[in-house]
C-alpha cells in the first residue's frame, strides 16, 4: 500500500535536480559575510547611538553635579537676587519645581492612564475592528502628532473659558499633559493587549468567566508588565514638557502645593527659565560669594534632578512591573 500511495502522491510531480539548489562555496561565503556584516552594522548602530547619549548624560552630570546639594533640593527661588547667596547659604533651589512636576505629572497620569487603558480595551476587546474602532485608532495616531504647544493652548483656552480669563494653575498643566500622554498610553496598551494570545481569552471564557473578568483578570493581568512599561514611557514623554507648561502652569519662585490654584513651576520650565537668564549680575561691591554664572549652573543642576526624578520613576515602574510579573519571569 505504501508503494501505491507513494506513486499517487508524486504522480505527475516534477523531477527535481537538487544539485542545482546546492549551496555553492561562494554563496555560502557571501551569506556568512553578509551575516557578519549585518552583525557589525547592528553593533555599530549601537555605538553610534551611544555617542550622543553618553554625551548628553555626561554633560548634564558634570555640569549639574556642581550645584546639586541638599540646599538646592530643599529651597525654592524666593528671595534669590542676582548672583548673591541666600541667607541659608545656597543660591536658591528646585523644591518648588520638584513638587510642581510631581503633582502636575501625577494629575496627568490620573486622567490619561485609566482612560487610555479603557480605550485600548475597547479597541482590542470589544470593537473587533469595526468602523468606529478604526476611526478611533486612526484618531489616536493623529492625536499622538498633536504638537505639545497646541495641547498647551487647548488647555489654556479651556480653562479661561470655564474659570475665567487669565486662569493659570497646575491642573491646567495636567490637562495639557494628559492630552499628550493619552495617545501614547492607548497605543502601547493596544499593542500589549493585542499580543496577549487569544488562547488565553478562549480558555478563560470557556470556563464560563464573564468578559469583564476575563479582561481584567486574565488579559490585563497578562499584559500588565507591558502596560506598566508603556505608561512609564508615556510619563517620560510628558514629564519633560516645557512649552505647554509655560503657558498653562506658569512660573513662580515660591512653593505652591495646591494643584488647583496658583501658578506652579515644573522642573523643565525651571531649567528653561534659568537658561534664559544665562548669567546673573554681581554689582561692583559684591562679595566673593556672588556667582555670575549661577543661573546656568542651576539650570544644569535642575536638569540633572529632572533626569534623576525620571530615573526614580522608572525604577518604581519597573519594580511594580516586576512584582506583578514575578511568576512569568521564572
Amino acid at each position, binding site marked *: 500500500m505504501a508503494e501505491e500511495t507513494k506513486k499517487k502522491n508524486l504522480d505527475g510531480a516534477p523531477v527535481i535536480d537538487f544539485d542545482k539548489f546546492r549551496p555553492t562555496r561562494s554563496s555560502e561565503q557571501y551569506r556568512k559575510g553578509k551575516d557578519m556584516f549585518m552583525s557589525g552594522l547592528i553593533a555599530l548602530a549601537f555605538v553610534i547611538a551611544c555617542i550622543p547619549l553618553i554625551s548628553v548624560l555626561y554633560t548634564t552630570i558634570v555640569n549639574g553635579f556642581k550645584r546639586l546639594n541638599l540646599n538646592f533640593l530643599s529651597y525654592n527661588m524666593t528671595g534669590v537676587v542676582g548672583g548673591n547667596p541666600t541667607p541659608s547659604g545656597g543660591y536658591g533651589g528646585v523644591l518648588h519645581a520638584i513638587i510642581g512636576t510631581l503633582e502636575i505629572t501625577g494629575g496627568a497620569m490620573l486622567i490619561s492612564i485609566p482612560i487610555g487603558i479603557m480605550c485600548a480595551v475597547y479597541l482590542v476587546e470589544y470593537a*473587533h*475592528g469595526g468602523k468606529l474602532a478604526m476611526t478611533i485608532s486612526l484618531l489616536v495616531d493623529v492625536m499622538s502628532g498633536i504638537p505639545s504647544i497646541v495641547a498647551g493652548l487647548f488647555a489654556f483656552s479651556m480653562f479661561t473659558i470655564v474659570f475665567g480669563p487669565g486662569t493659570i494653575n497646575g491642573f491646567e498643566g495636567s490637562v495639557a499633559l494628559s492630552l499628550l500622554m493619552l495617545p501614547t498610553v492607548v497605543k502601547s496598551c493596544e499593542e500589549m493587549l493585542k499580543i496577549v*494570545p*487569544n*488562547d*488565553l*481569552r*478562549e*480558555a*478563560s*471564557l*470557556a*470556563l*464560563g*468567566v*464573564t*468578559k469583564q*473578568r*476575563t479582561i481584567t*483578570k*486574565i488579559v490585563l*493581568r*497578562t499584559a*500588565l508588565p507591558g502596560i506598566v512599561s508603556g505608561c512609564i514611557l508615556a510619563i517620560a514623554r510628558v514629564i519633560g514638557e516645557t512649552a505647554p507648561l509655560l503657558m498653562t502652569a506658569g512660573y513662580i519662585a515660591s512653593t505652591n502645593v495646591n494643584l488647583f490654584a496658583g501658578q506652579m513651576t515644573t522642573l523643565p520650565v525651571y531649567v528653561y527659565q534659568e537658561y534664559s537668564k544665562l548669567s546673573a549680575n554681581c554689582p561692583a561691591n559684591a562679595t566673593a560669594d556672588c556667582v555670575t554664572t549661577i543661573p546656568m549652573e542651576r539650570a544644569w543642576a535642575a536638569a540633572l534632578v529632572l533626569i534623576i526624578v525620571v530615573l526614580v520613576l522608572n525604577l518604581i515602574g519597573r519594580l511594580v512591573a516586576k512584582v506583578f*510579573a514575578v*511568576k*512569568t519571569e*521564572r
Partner: protein
Amino acid sequence: MGQRIDVNHENIYYGDFLAVEDVNINIEANKVTAFIGPSGCGKSTVLRTLDRMHELIPGAHVEGEVLLEGKNLYDKDVDPVSVRRDVGMVFQRPNPFPTMSIRENVLAGVRLNNKHISKSDADDLVEWALRGANLWNEVKDRLDNPGIGLSGGQQQRLCIARAVAVHPQVVLMDEPCSALDPISTLAVEDLINELKDDYTIVIVTHNMQQAARIADYTAFFNLKAVGQPGHLEYFADTTTMFNNPQNAEAERYISGRFG
C-alpha cells in the same frame, strides 16, 4: 447529571464562507460522543458552536438550533457566559494562564467567577482535578510554580484539570490528547470514562483507536471537496461505526482507504 445536546439544521459561517452545512446530531447525556473526520472538515468548528465559542471569531455565526436539554443556546435571552459555564472546553493546544501558578490555574474557573472558596476546599479541588488529569504526582511538590513551566504534555493535562475543576455539565474536548504521550493519553481516557458518570462528553480526535476505545457514539464528518462546506456524513454508535458502518465513505475512512 450531564445534559443532552440536540443540534438541528445547523449551518456555520465564517463571514460569508459556509464552513459546515446542515448538521443534525443528538448527543446523549452521560455518554461520550466522538467527532472524527479528515482535516479541515469542520470538527472543531462544530464543537465550538456547542458552547458558542465560535462567537469569539469576528464574523463567525450560526444558523439553526443547538438545544441543551431542550433549551436553545442561541435564544435571545441566553447568556453565552452561562452556556460556557455549563459546557466546558479543552483545547487542541495547551493554554495555561501564564501569570498563574499550577494551583491557581486549576482554581481559575472557580476564582475568576468570584466564588469564594476556603483554602481546604481549594486544596481538595486542586488535588482532585490534578489527580483526574494524571498530573498530581508530577506537580504536587511545585503547585506554586508557574503553569507554563511544564512540558507540553504536562501543560495540556493541567488544562484538562482546569476545565473539569469547574464541574460543567458537558465537556467539549478538541483533540485533547494530540500533545500527550500514550501514558498520559490513557490516563485522560480513564478520566473521560469516569467523568461520563456525571457529565456529557464530546471529543474531537484524530486517533480512531481512541474513538473506538472511549466513545459511545461516533460522528463522522466529511468534506466533499476542498473549499466546499463540511458536513456530518454519518452518525452511529461506536460499535456500529467501527465494525459495521452503514456508510461507504465512513467505511473507507475508517479502514484507512481514504483520500
